[in-house]
């Protein structure tokens, strides 16, 4: 039982937090800008590499420089929006999706060009697990989950207490009505990009701290993050959190030997777990668990 908790459930929660932070951005983009942004994963990678460079230049801890990286990444993302997404504000969604496909490759190839393809580390060495009675958890996992919770609370506060947050929610629920009441759509859009990019950078830095930094890291997470956003319901950031946690936990649990000694599902298919959940949700309940927008 303890083994189940410590080595399957907890890693699943940690992974789920990383998925969740990324999925919030996807869910918001989907809800407010109305398209699935395939470049989100590589935005995350970009943020991590910027963090890496800042760490190398300043010698500070990655979490200390992360806010600066968030600012820089947001700036770049806003520039990309101006160049590649703004021309399609009034066009069918499909143009935006294709543009984001193209942008995904452009971002990744530029990262590979400037930083090269070899591995980097945000943190060296290993940590021993900390024990609290029968529970065992890594200190950095406590940090990741803790920081993720703080960020999610910040998102919650922003969406409910601030003016821009309420404007974002209004635009997500009913864009025509929101525009009619005088909400500045472009401002809402910029805020959406800023929030999505910053959360993606955070997710990426946590992932980098937990594993390492390489150029495909964001893309590898893209589909599970889409799955999480769809699972939670499009345009529902809280749903995205729940979706992320579910996907992360289910992925880790799929390697558990439920029956006998070997995993129920060959670990080679682990990557397919998120996809399968996603496809199942799309067929069975496309509006997601939390009843988001259904298009």
């Amino acid at each position: 039982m303890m083994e189940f908790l410590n080595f399957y459930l907890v890693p699943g929660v940690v992974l789920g937090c990383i998925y969740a932070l990324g999925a919030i951005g996807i869910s918001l983009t989907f809800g407010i800008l109305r398209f699935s942004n395939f470049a989100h994963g590589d935005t995350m990678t970009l943020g991590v590499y910027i963090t890496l460079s800042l760490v190398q230049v300043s010698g500070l801890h990655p979490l200390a420089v992360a806010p600066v990286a968030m600012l820089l990444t947001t700036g770049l993302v806003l520039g990309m929006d101006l160049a590649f997404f703004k021309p399609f504000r009034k066009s069918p969604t499909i143009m935006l999706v294709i543009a984001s496909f193209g942008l995904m490759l452009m971002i990744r190839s530029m990262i590979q060009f400037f930083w090269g393809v070899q591995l980097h580390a945000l943190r060296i060495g290993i940590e021993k697990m900390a024990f609290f009675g029968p529970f065992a958890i890594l200190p950095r996992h406590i940090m990741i989950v803790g920081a993720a919770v703080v960020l999610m609370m910040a998102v919650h506060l922003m969406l409910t207490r601030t003016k821009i947050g309420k404007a974002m929610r209004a635009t997500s629920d009913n864009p025509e009505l929101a525009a009619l009441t005088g909400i500045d759509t472009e401002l809402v859009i910029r805020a959406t990009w800023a929030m999505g990019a910053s959360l993606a950078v955070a997710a990426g830095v946590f992932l980098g701290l937990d594993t390492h930094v390489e150029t495909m890291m964001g893309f590898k997470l893209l589909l599970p993050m889409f799955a999480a956003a769809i699972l939670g319901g499009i345009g529902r950031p809280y749903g995205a959190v729940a979706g992320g946690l579910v996907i992360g936990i289910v992925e880790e649990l799929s390697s558990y030997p439920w029956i006998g000694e070997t995993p129920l599902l060959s670990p080679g298919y682990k990557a397919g777990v998120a996809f399968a959940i996603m496809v199942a949700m799309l067929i069975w309940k496309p509006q997601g668990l939390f009843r988001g927008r259904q298009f």
Partner: protein
Amino acid sequence: MEQYYGYFIYALSLLTMGGIYSVLALGLNVQWGFTGLFNAGIAGFFAVGAYTQALLTTPIYRDHLGGYNWPIPLAMLAAMVLSAVVAYAVAKICIRLRSDYLAIATIGIAEIVRLIFKNEIWATNGPRGVSQIPKAFEGLPQPWNTLAFLGMVLTIVALIYLALERARTAPWGRVMTAIRENETAAAAAGKNIEGFRLESFVIGSALMGLGGALMAQYLKQIDPNVSDPLTATFLVFVMLIVGGSANNRGAVLGAMLMWTVWSSTEILTSRLPDEFAIRSAYVRVFLIGLILQFILQKRPQGILPETRPKPNPRHRGDNSPVKNSGRTTE
């Protein structure tokens, strides 16, 4: 002299790959150009076709299924059929989804297909792939074998093109366009939207399976890396968009053009000094993405815009007062 012969053979290879990609682009055109179905899972159907061709035709080998020794044309047919069957199953599930949901779903399904081919090692030899795939006309001496294979590919492209052109101008094609442009009106006119979409998806995927079968023969080797999303899905979209979607000629043009650009730009960059040559590989990908953005913004209809079929008087319904000669009847 040898240099010119070399250029000639290279040009043949460009045409062959361009032709195979044309088959894929034409398949995508049926689904997306005509019917508006955003199938981002091309790689999956491509893989199904390629592995079917490979496993049915290769001789017995210790590491994967084999020894059936089917004749090549029959295997190509089987590849189309199997892709169509998988497409039917996928479409039954996904066909009602809105475009970007369909994109995500089809990507997910293509990834699952790839994982299956990668993990069912008893059947496919997993990541090590299938080698020594028989290729049509390979018994002939050089360069006749290359020319014959190219001839076969181009003939197939021509046949598909003619068939699709016929379909486009026929009522079937026009219903597709109607569904794409104004689904409610088409439904109001009594058309079975889901049925048509299903047909379109299945036919397009069968073509993609055929493309996979041709590729398996041309390379004589396939493994799960062959159906990688960049070069098997994204590149086909770029080809269709650049060439002109909803235009069959545009699909072929886009395929030939973009493959030539993709392949030949490397000849230039590999002549740079080595530190640049390696990094330039990334610049190539960047440029393809940039070209796509440029076309999307400045010329979204592509090089060859969509051609609408002119209404053919002979195909009007029975209630039309106008007959062939243009005379009205009572």
